[in-house]
């Protein structure tokens, strides 16, 4: 998958899971302040990403540092690169 395809899959998966408006999903959007997610959504987000990309991430410390949509993009792209 290209980087653009990965980002599109992330954004479409999160939009479906959290009923987000794609127009609001700018890379710099803060998950909590701009997109209205909360701590309960973090667990659901992990499960969504694991399902979309077929990897395990739920025990990783880096998830706790995620604040923006771009943070998620970078995290997943790094993870894909590690796995390949």
């Amino acid at each position: 998958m290209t980087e653009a395809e990965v980002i599109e899959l992330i954004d479409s998966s999160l939009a479906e899971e959290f009923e987000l408006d794609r127009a609001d999903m700018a890379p710099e959007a803060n998950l909590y302040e701009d997109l209205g997610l909360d701590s309960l959504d973090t667990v659901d987000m992990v499960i969504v990403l694991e399902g979309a990309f077929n990897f395990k991430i739920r025990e990783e410390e880096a998830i706790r540092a995620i604040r923006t949509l771009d943070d998620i993009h970078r995290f997943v792209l790094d993870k894909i690169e590690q796995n390949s």
Partner: protein
Amino acid sequence: MKAVSDTEEKERSESSPATALVWVMNLWAYSLLFVWTLLSLLLFPVAFVLGKLILRWSTERLVRWFIWVYGRVWLFYMSPFVRFERQDMDLLERDKPYLLVVNHFSFFDTFCMALLPLYNIAFAVRSWPFKMVWYRSFMRMARYLDVESGSWGETLASSKETFAHGGSVLFFPEGHRSRDGHLQRFHSGGFQVAIAAGVPVVPLCIDGTNRLLPAGRMLMHPCRIRLKALPAIDTSNFSETDGHIRLRKQVKEQMVKTLTAMRAGES
């Protein structure tokens, strides 16, 4: 010029009995809540030992039963001011595991779950209820789930264990209390647990607790509270990828329709 108009003066005098009723209700309810909670804390050790010796139940089952009885007594002493109604409780079979999902208006929603014919329920809640010192030990012994600070794996494993022993798990899919009386976005966690564990989902609609004690308020008001069970949903039909989203949407749609009908009936 009068500081207050005649109309305002009339309205104020007419509202005095209602205001007095509210104050009497709150004095009654909060006093008894304090007394009953204190009494429960004192009675619990004896009840627990007797329960273990005579009934030989597991700790979590015994404590969940005790919590259910605590709630039942709350229903009783609130009944001079609150009319409680249950609908379609015959849809729930005892000792059959369910994933129960209920909408959330008020702190007292959990107390109202004593209206259910089931007592063996583990509640899945956020972290803050565990900070209430007088309730925390009971919640831990009853193996309530802290879905905010616990991991998904822990939530699923603990839920499966509850189901394996004939218990049910209850989620508030909105995650926090609605402040406008409408259903908020549903979180997926409970639905994912139900599909992964292979247990049916039973939606429960509660109405009236937003009038009893709205979120962010301290004064209770007399009201009518209704708890209605909807038919169980077989989760084996939702095993595809993102099946939990389809299940979540279906349940929410059913609950919105039911709550609308309940309120239409009332008005």
